[in-house]
Structures are given as structure tokens and as C-alpha cells.
């Protein structure tokens, strides 16, 4: 299973150094944490890895192969999936349909056989539907399969995003505040799923404001502040780091 490396990565918006000189590793079979106060640059990191934003400097590699200049869809096809901090669903589509689109890169039928409705096209759809139902059961969403995604409660929308991201069994998953707005019971349920995914060999990058949640799940935690990596290491080292404490107290409310 491959791991993800960021090597001296920077993103500047005009004069603003949203991310600067960031180096980190997201290893397979583990959950890696990325924390930092509001505006620290966490989502910008995710957007650079997933090909939404171009890098100003540095390189991003998966097993030595660079992703730095790839378009978002190319990154996804290389096995790097993500969720969005501001939930993005297909609002008119049902929960099941939202999950089904997640299988896109596993499609085998050619365009022509899809137009003609040949068995290969039907097999794809059937295969994906079976797997989608497995996911729905795993996330305890099977009762909502036929609901329009746009009408779901917040916590359920987050789950739909998760299911969609992991449907095609990516190697690396970037989770941008996946439990934001959930209650403790809900976020514990998801924590269990995150652990299972890591145990199955995936590399997870978890962005989260709740430091307790991150320290419980992650082996390795990176701390960003104003675009710069101010600390990294085990949860214990990071949370006792004076710079980290200062950053969190400095912005208050965390």
C-alpha cells in the first residue's frame, strides 16, 4: 500500500502565504492527523493534494510518483479520494445514487456498450449497486437509501460524502473535518469506521478541530499555524508543545 509525501509544499495567494514549507507523510494503515486553528491552511493542503489548487512550490508524491501537476480527476484515478469541509452532495440525487457515482473509476464497460445497453454495462451497474448497499449498511444508512441527499440531516450528509469517497476503495483518503457538527455518538461511530479503514491498509489524513478526537485516533499528528508546520509527532509530543499550546490559546475558543 502506497504512502503520500508532501515535500516542502507551498501555496501563496498573492501576498498571503496560505501554506508554506510544509513537509509531511501520510502512511498506509494509519490515521494521520492534521490540526491547526481556523485559517491555518489545512483545507488548502487538501486542495493541493487533490489537484484542486496548483502548488506554488514543492512536490507531492505517492510512492515516488508526483501528483503535483495532475488535474483533480487524475489524482482521484490514482487512488486519492477526499471529502469536502463544506459538504458537497448531488442534492437532487438519492443517497444511493450519490454513493453509486463514487464507483466511477471502477467502470469497465465502454461508452459504446453503455449506449447499446450491453451486458457489460448492466454488470457494472449491478456490481456497484451491491457494493453500495454494503456501504449503506456499514454506515447504517440503508433506511435512507431512497432519500434525496439534499434533504438529509447534517450528520447523514457527512456519511454520504464518506461512503462516496471510499466507494472505489482508494489507497489514500483525505477527510476534511468529517465529524464537524456531529454529536459524540455519531462521531464515535465514524471513528470506529476510520479505524477499520486504516486497519484494512488505507492511508487516512484526518483534519479535525477537536484535538481530543484526533489524539485518540492518530499515531502521527501535524500542526499547522498560519500556513507553517509548527509541530509534528505523536499526539503526546504535539499537545504538550508550547508553540502548539500558544497557537491554540492565541486564537482562543479551542
Amino acid at each position, binding site marked *: 500500500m502506497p504512502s503520500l509525501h508532501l515535500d516542502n509544499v507551498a501555496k501563496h495567494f498573492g501576498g498571503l502565504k496560505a501554506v508554506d514549507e510544509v513537509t509531511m507523510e501520510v502512511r498506509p494503515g494509519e490515521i494521520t492527523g492534521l490540526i491547526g486553528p481556523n485559517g491555518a491552511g489545512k483545507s488548502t493542503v487538501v486542495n493541493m493534494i*487533490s489537484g*484542486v489548487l496548483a502548488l506554488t512550490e514543492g512536490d507531492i508524491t505517492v510512492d515516488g510518483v508526483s501528483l503535483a501537476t495532475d*488535474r*483533480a*480527476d487524475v489524482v*482521484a*484515478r490514482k487512488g486519492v*479520494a*477526499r471529502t*469536502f469541509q463544506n459538504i*458537497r*452532495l*448531488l*442534492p*437532487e*440525487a*438519492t443517497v444511493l*445514487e450519490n454513493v*453509486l*457515482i*463514487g464507483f*466511477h*473509476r471502477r*467502470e469497465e*464497460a465502454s*461508452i459504446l456498450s*453503455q*449506449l*447499446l*445497453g450491453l451486458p457489460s*454495462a*448492466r454488470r*457494472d*451497474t449491478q456490481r456497484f449497486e451491491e457494493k453500495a448497499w454494503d456501504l449503506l449498511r456499514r454506515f447504517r444508512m440503508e*433506511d435512507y437509501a*431512497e*432519500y434525496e441527499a439534499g434533504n438529509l440531516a447534517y450528520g447523514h450528509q457527512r456519511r454520504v460524502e464518506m461512503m*462516496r*469517497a471510499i466507494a*472505489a476503495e482508494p489507497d489514500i483518503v483525505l477527510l476534511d473535518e468529517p465529524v464537524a457538527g456531529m454529536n459524540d455518538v455519531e462521531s464515535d461511530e465514524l471513528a470506529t469506521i476510520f479505524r477499520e479503514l486504516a486497519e484494512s491498509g488505507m492511508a487516512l489524513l484526518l483534519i479535525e478541530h477537536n484535538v481530543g478526537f484526533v489524539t485518540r485516533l492518530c499515531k502521527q499528528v501535524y500542526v499547522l499555524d498560519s500556513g507553517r508546520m509548527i509541530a509534528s509527532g505523536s499526539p503526546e509530543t504535539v499537545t504538550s508543545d508550547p508553540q502548539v499550546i500558544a497557537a491554540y490559546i492565541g486564537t482562543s475558543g479551542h
Partner: protein
Amino acid sequence: MMQFYLAYQPIIDFFLLSVGFGYSQQIALRAGVFSIATAGFAALGSYCVAILATKTGIPIFLTVILGTALAAAVGGVLALPLARLRGAFQAIATLAFVQIILSLLLYGEGFTGGALGIVGIPREVNTWILLAVVAVTMYVLWNIGRSGMGRVFNALRQEESVASSLGVNIGKYHIIAFILSGALGGLFGGLQSLYTFQIEPHNYGFAFIVNILTVVILGGRTTLLGPIMGALIMALLPEIARPLAENRQAVNGVILILVITFLPNGVGDEIVFWFRRRKQARQQQKRASEKEARDAVSTS
């Protein structure tokens, strides 16, 4: 029955052609492409067939295939310069495309007959042929709807960034949508010229664009039933509103505003959605009662 058919044959044929053009328009909108190039594709198909049918001895059905292929190819090529445009900009660029096609037809007099167009096109197409082609078109569109391509189109229409985050090559699928829209526009344009005896550039001008957009907006942008309902309304309206014939445009306008206000998804889409929702409600009910039964068993 026969009498009914004879009396209403022109309306039925007009309806079937509108359905075909409606599908050409719809497949683009469905994929999130705000193209109004259908008029240009229809003109290409129509002129290609008319020229080949009047000036060469090529078998008629081959002229239709060539017209379809030409419009499909032009559609695919058109997608390239438009790749970065969205929404209103796409609409305007495709409108410019239609105008380019129309002016080529006007100025290519030696070939296209200029403003007078082409006359004496063999009348090879009848209601049954139109019906058969519409049926085949619907079958293909039905397949698309049930395949990965349909899922991608739906995703692109609703949230492009999600589609690309899941590996969808947006450019590729926009090209496919343009090719399909071009093929359908060219196909029904070709059939139209084999039906009307005479064609001129004017047939594919502003009125055509508005009519076809109206078919899809009245009927619906996403379901197979959409263009059928839209075309049905457009075909029947002049009959129903015959006493108001002088105000036909006004009546059309009022109906369009009413539908957009009260049935924003279009008549056909709303009907399909209604059935879908009813089915979903039933399935949910069924699951709930199954669960209750299970719970009752496990607690007893």
C-alpha cells in the same frame, strides 16, 4: 382511426420531430452543458441530407447516416474550444456557432441555394419512420440513463467539483454530451429535410432555438418523458388555442411562465418524480413494517 391519423398526421409528425430535437437539446442540459447548438446540428444534418439526396445518387438512408455523423463530429470538435466555458457563456458561444452555420448556409449559395435553400428533396420520411427513429433514440437514452454515463451526466449537472473529485474527466464527458447532442440534432434534421420537400436557413433560426428550448423547459430536463410532454404541449397548443390564434405567441409565453413558476422541473419530469417519490415512500413503509415485525419477534 385512419381518419384521425389523416387529420392529425402533420401534428403527429411535427410532434415526433420536436421530440427528437428536444432530446438533442436535453442530453446537453442533462450533462450540465448549457448548449443551444441543436439548431446548428439540425441545420448541418438537414443540409447534408438535402444536398446528397438531390445532387448525388447515394442511397437515402446513407445520406441520413452521413448527416448524423457530420453533426456528431462537428459537435465533438465544438466541445474543445468551449471546454472552459460554463452557463451563460456556453449558451452565447453555442449561439454564435449556430449563427456561423446559418451564415455559411446563406453565403455558400452555389452549394446550399443561399436564402432560397434547397427544393425538391425526395419525400422519403413518413410518420412510421419518424416513430421508429424516436423509439430507437429513446432506447439508447434509456440505456444511458441506466449506465455509468448517465450517472456521470447527472453528477456533472449537479456538482462538477464532486464529479472530478471522484475521477470524472469533465472535458471528456462534455465532448461525449456534445457528440450525442450533435448526432441527435443531425439525425432529426436529416429526417426533417426528407419530410418537408424544401429547407432554407431560416428554418433553423431564432424561432427554432426558442421552440426546442421551450420543449425541454416545458417538458423537463432530465427524464425521457420530458421532451415528449414538452413537444406534446407545443404540438397541441395551436389546436387548443385556435380561437386565440392571433395571440399564439402570447399564449405560449403565458404557459411557459406558468410552468416555470409552478412546475420548475417541467411537466414530464414532475410526473416522473411524483411516481418515484410514491415508490420510495412505499419502500420506506415496507422496510419500516418489516423492521417492526422483526423487533416484535426478537422481543417476544
